[in-house]
Structures are given as C-alpha cells and as structure tokens.
C-alpha cells in the first residue's frame, strides 16, 4: 500500500468516526466500560494473588536448638542454616521470647515458668525463598547437630499451600474468563455497529472498491474506537492505583504483606488493556465486514 493511500484511509476513518457521532460514542463507551471492569478486576485479583504469596512466604521453619548447645555450636548452626540453598533469612528467638508468646496466647498461668523454669528451647526461625521449598528446608535442617526438633506447621502449612494454590488457580481462571468476556463484548458491539452500516459497505463494493480498500478505513476506525475506549479506563485505573498504592502500603507498613509495584504491574496492565482495545477493535471490525463484502 502506498503511503498516500494509507493517509487517505486514515482520513476516511477519522471522517467516519466524526460523522457517526452518536454511534461512535456508544461504541467507545461500551469499550471503556468493559475494559474498566476487566482492568479493575485484574488489578484486584493480581493483588489478592500477591497477598496469597505473601501469606505463604510468611510460613517459616522453626528449628529448636538443643539445650546442650554452646554459643559456638549455636553460631555454627546458624551458619549452616544460612547456607541452605532456599533459606532467605534466619532469625533467632530466645526461649524467653517464646515463652512470652505462649503467655500471650494461653494466659498468665505460664508466667510460673519464667526464668530458669522455662521448659522451652531457643529457636531459629527460617524464612524460605519459595514456599514450596519449606518441607525440603525442614528436612535439611533436621540433619544438623544440636538441632532438637524441626517444625513448620506440617499439615497446617501444607493445607495453607493447598488453599492458596486453589485461590491462585481460581484467580487465574477468572482473569482469563474476564479477558475472554471483554473480547467478546467489544467484538460484539463493533459487529452491531458495523451491521447497521451494511448498505454502505454494499454500495462501496458496487462502486468498484476492492475488499481491502473498504476494509482499511473500517479497520482503522475500529482500532481508534478501541484505543479511545481503552484510554478512559487506563487513565482511571492508573490514577486510582497510584493513589491507592501509597495509602495501602503505608497501612501495611511493617507487615510481610504488600501490593504489586506499579512498575512493572500497572504498566503491564495498561499495555494489556490498550492491546485488547486496539486489537479487538480492528480485528473485530475487519472480521465483521467480511460477510457484507460478498456482493
């Protein structure tokens, strides 16, 4: 296609967008509302997924230190634990710390065991890089000397992982379903608008226009409608996410939890929404006119 011809197609499509006035507005707003819905849900679901991951990563392995361990032994053990591949962090929690936790949960009666009466062990708390590695890390930790016991919530944690896995799968399915829905609704709207212009297409064909000569302006028009329609939710979502992000992060300060960083997440989402708008707009209109081109 010559550059001049391409220019003409673009001019034609702009003219058509303007002259279709009301119809353009209807199509653009359908795209906008659909993508706003889909974009918001993707943002929410992806962050829920992120929280799920954070919760999983919050599961830690507790390594009870043998009462017989000297300070050097304990240091050596810490070194060993830190050297395990998937271990990210090793935190020491003394028997006194442990007892205060018990007292917090089960009541002051345990205050009796304060000081030397404390039956508890000192503990190393390990955080693993990937939640899946938890069981493995526990097994490895058990091999070291001066380890009295290793504990990671066992069945409870496995159950948590299972639930989170389900949450993640369901979220993924919902996102895919949402994208399909958006594609369908946008394509359907474009199809109806084009259907109302079938006589025009037939006349163009009768006047001797080739299929591509007719298709290009419609394709560009569809892409523009999709693009303009996507700009609205993209702007809205970006604004809300950026403002909301700071507030929520402040709120979550000091916890293990956090939202997805706007870079890259928000950028990816924006690209996705614009891509859906432009691609479905153009492909949808190009496919929709097909059946009216057979004159």
């Amino acid at each position, binding site marked *: 296609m010559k550059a*001049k*011809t391409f220019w*003409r197609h673009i001019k034609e499509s702009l003219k*058509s967008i303007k*002259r*279709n006035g009301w119809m353009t507005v209807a199509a653009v707003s359908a795209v906008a509302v659909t993508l706003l819905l889909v974009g918001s849900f993707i943002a929410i679901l992806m962050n829920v997924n992120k929280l799920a991951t954070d919760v999983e990563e919050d599961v830690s392995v507790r390594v009870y230190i043998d009462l017989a361990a000297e300070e050097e032994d304990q240091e050596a053990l810490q070194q060993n634990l830190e050297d395990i591949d998937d271990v990210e962090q090793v935190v020491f929690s003394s028997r006194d710390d442990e007892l205060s936790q018990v007292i917090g949960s089960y009541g002051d009666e345990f205050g009796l065991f304060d000081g030397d009466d404390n039956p508890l062990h000192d503990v190393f708390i390990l955080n693993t890089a990937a939640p899946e590695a938890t069981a493995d890390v526990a097994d490895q930790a058990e091999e070291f000397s001066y380890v009295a016991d290793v504990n990671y919530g066992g069945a409870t944690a496995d159950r948590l992982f299972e639930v989170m896995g389900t949450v993640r799968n369901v979220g993924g399915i919902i996102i895919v379903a949402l994208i399909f829905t958006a594609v369908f609704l946008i394509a359907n709207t474009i199809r109806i608008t084009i259907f109302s212009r079938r006589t*025009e297409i037939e*006349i*163009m*064909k*009768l*006047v*001797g*226009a*080739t*299929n591509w*000569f007719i298709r290009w302006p419609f394709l560009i028009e569809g892409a523009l409608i999709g693009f303009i329609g996507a700009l609205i939710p993209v702007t809205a979502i970006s604004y809300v996410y950026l403002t909301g992000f700071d507030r929520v992060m402040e709120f979550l300060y000091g916890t293990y939890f956090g939202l997805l960083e706007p870079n890259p997440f928000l950028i990816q989402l924006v690209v996705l929404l614009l891509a859906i708008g432009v691609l479905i707009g153009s492909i949808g209109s190009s496919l929709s006119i097909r059946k009216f081109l*057979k*004159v």
Partner: protein
Amino acid sequence: MIKMTNVYKKYPNGITAINGLDVSIDQGEFVYVVGPSGAGKSTFIKMIYREEVPTKGTVKVGEFDLVGLKAKKVPYLRRHVGVVYQDFKLLPRLTVFENVAYAMQVVGKNSKQIQKRTLEVLDLVGLKHKVRMFPNELSGGEQQRVAIARAIANMPRVLIADEPTGNLDPETAWGIMDLLEEINNQGTTIIMATHNSDIVNRVRHRVLAVENGRIARDQEGGEYGYES
C-alpha cells in the same frame, strides 16, 4: 462487448426474473431497455455488472466471463462499468462531492485529478452549487443527478442507467439525454432502462423490449412500446 447466452435467473424466493434471454451488444452502442414493471429489466442490467449472477447461461462483458469470475476480480469489472442505480445508492454519510470522488478514489486516481473531474461532472448535471450537501438534504431529482455524475466520473467503457430520468422534470431529463448522447459519441456503450416513451421515440436507438424475462423485441431505432 456484452454477450448473454441462454440466461436464466431465479431469485431465492422462487421468482424467475430472467427466463432464457439472449442478447449481444457491441462496443459503442446505445440501447434502450423497455418493458412493463417487473419484466426483468433491472435484473437484466444487474447481471452486466454482476450484482446478480445468472442461475444458468453465460454472461460475457469485454474480456470478463461473469459466471466464473473470481470474487477478487469483480471490482475490476465494475470499474469499467458505470451504473446509475434505480434507487441511486448514494453513500449517506458522504457529501455530494465525496460520493462522486469515492468512485474515483477506488480506482486510485490522484487527488488533483479527482478534485477537477468531480467538479466537472457535477457541473455537467447542474449540481456544482450543492457539492457540500449530504444525500438526505437533496431533492429526489438532485439525488438522481448525483448518481449520474458518479457513474460517468471514471469515463467507463459501459454506462448502465436504470431509469435515470424517473425523478427528473422533462427539461432536466433532456439535458441528461444530451449528456448521454455525447458520452456515447465518445465511444461509450450505453444501456438505459427507461419508461420514458417521449425520449425513446424522439432519440431513436436500438430498443430491447423485455417481457416476462425474455427479449420480446430487439429493434434498431425502434419505438417505445411492448405487447402486453
């Protein structure tokens, strides 16, 4: 130039509009197609630019064999055939100027040529002052003249006009006839379906009388009229 042999056209609703039609028209001829309402004139004409394809028989226009013609080739056939449709078929969202220009853009002419030629043909049909209007802002006769302007813009080898004066007052109609005569003198084949007996009888040309989907009379320099 145009040759139809043993052509039948049955519409999906079961009506046989063309019922064994044979005809041959040479390059540069001027042919009137007459006949009662519903005789099959428009259907006959639609088969020349392949809006309709015959159910049976062969249609040849120039080097194009219309029955076996690939869908891709159809636009190129249509560029050689200018058509004035009975119902005008103007593009509602384009102005008068753009409607005529569109037919030329389709062929790939450059903008300057288009600009010049569009104004020229609109002037010929007396509508130079309405170039900026949209079809629904025009009177019936004005719309018909835009359709005529569009059909002749590309200087087609064949000009088909289905009832081109039906909405025109006699004076304007005669102006259009002069125009068609002139175009015909430059070598364009003209096929014109008409109910205007005045015109047919005064400007004598070959007359094809269509009745019940057949050529009932084919007479060089004949009068308007058909048995019925």
